[in-house]
């Protein structure tokens, strides 16, 4: 398993994917930098407000779309010039290959989350945001957002291994992510898997911001874990039977 993972790492090392993990953190930084109203306070902290400004676009659109871009990217080498045949002719099982790919996507998403944290710290430092940094809250929120993007990554990987085209899986991704813009303000948000990253990046009921965005732990667990199991199982079963 480790060998499969390290082979994924070799394939990614010199590719342009290293640029992709910076895209969303840079945009978060731009939002943070151009948000000039520094007097606004959320939960008694200007840091919390900064986090909200910077993480809103990231959680709502960028993070869900990145699950699709990373998944499509990670299958690109194999789709080009018969890479699947070479990879699967090695003494590794198909499920190992599939899980290694999913782990790689999740690691890239984790790196993106870390960079969002870095960009928050840097922008806060440049802007001279006062007060203690809410480490516990921010770390937990970023980690929650990462976990909530797992079902999306599972679906996108399933679509990406089945279609050789780079754009087709992204079309699927966009079709599900765009409704987020409306879903997020409706009472159906807790049931929509694509809205979970943004919901879980803004704390749970106890720590909800201004009552505008709430999240129920129960539906989070049911929707996130439920859809992850469904998408992952469907993708894995399909991949194991696919003729390459």
């Amino acid at each position: 398993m480790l060998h499969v993972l390290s082979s994924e790492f070799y394939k990614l090392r010199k590719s342009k994917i290293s640029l992709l993990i910076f895209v969303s953190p840079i945009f978060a930084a731009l939002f943070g930098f151009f948000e000039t109203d520094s007097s606004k306070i959320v939960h008694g902290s200007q840091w919390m407000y900064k986090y909200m400004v910077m993480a809103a676009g990231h959680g709502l659109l960028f993070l869900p779309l990145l699950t699709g871009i990373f998944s499509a990217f990670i299958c690109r080498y194999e789709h080009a010039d018969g890479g699947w045949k070479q990879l699967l002719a090695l003494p590794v099982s198909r499920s190992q290959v599939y899980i290694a790919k999913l782990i790689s996507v999740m690691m890239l998403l984790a790196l993106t989350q870390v960079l969002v944290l870095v960009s928050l710290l840097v922008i806060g430092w440049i802007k001279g945001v006062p007060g203690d940094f809410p480490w516990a809250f921010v770390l937990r929120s970023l980690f929650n957002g990462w976990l909530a993007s797992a079902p999306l990554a599972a679906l996108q990987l399933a679509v990406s291994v089945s279609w050789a085209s780079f754009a087709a899986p992204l079309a699927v991704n966009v079709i599900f992510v765009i409704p987020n813009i409306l879903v997020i303000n409706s009472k159906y948000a807790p049931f929509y898997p694509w809205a979970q990253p943004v919901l879980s990046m803004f704390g749970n009921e106890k720590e909800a911001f201004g009552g505008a965005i709430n999240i129920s732990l129960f539906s989070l667990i049911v929707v996130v874990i439920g859809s992850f199991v469904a998408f992952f199982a469907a993708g894995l079963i399909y991949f194991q039977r696919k003729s390459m």
Partner: protein
Amino acid sequence: MWGVFSSDLLKIKRKLILFLIVLGPLGVIGLEAVNFGLRYDYLTKIYASDLWSGLLNNVQQLSVVVMLLGVAIITSLMATIEHQTNAWKQVLALPISRTEVYTAKFLFNGLLLFASCILLAFGSVILGIVLGFGTDIPYTGLLKITVFPFLAALPFLAVQIWLAVTFKNQSIALTFGIVYALFSSYTRNAPDWLPLKWPLMMNSFSVITGVVTGLIVLTITLVDFAKRDVN
């Protein structure tokens, strides 16, 4: 030219592209139908003075992002047809000039997007009538939210076609296209010279600068395509 055009049409038969061209406007109208359906009393109270323009505003807020995302995805899907089968060599070996091939691609993609915008206009009218907003349809407003953003987005169409055709690695074109499409919704307060703001502005300035810039970008990329080594 016409030959290239009809060959492009043949290539997208039974492909995802036509489905997406219909799904884009249909999805926007569907989401707005749900939006207005669920919050009918609330929204009709807000827009009580002018129900139609309230509806058109809501449609437009969603449709511009969807259109820009559509530009990136459709152009990439179109270029992938040639990339995947290494067909650029064959297409360019035919007795037609590269200028014709490229211009036909531009016009074809433009036509598909235009069709999509027209569908959006029809969809908005149907939705408005179904919601009981009367038959006093504001045709100017309808034209503004459908055709104006399309014309203002022509520079992006030209850029995306060039990226998708030039770089076989479609992640470049798609990442670029998706990122600025998402960013466009935050440009309402940006200065007027920012091209990303044009599809949202919906006035004569945005249309004229959009078309002119689009033609300039098309010309530059056309010259580049004509010179490029194809393998």
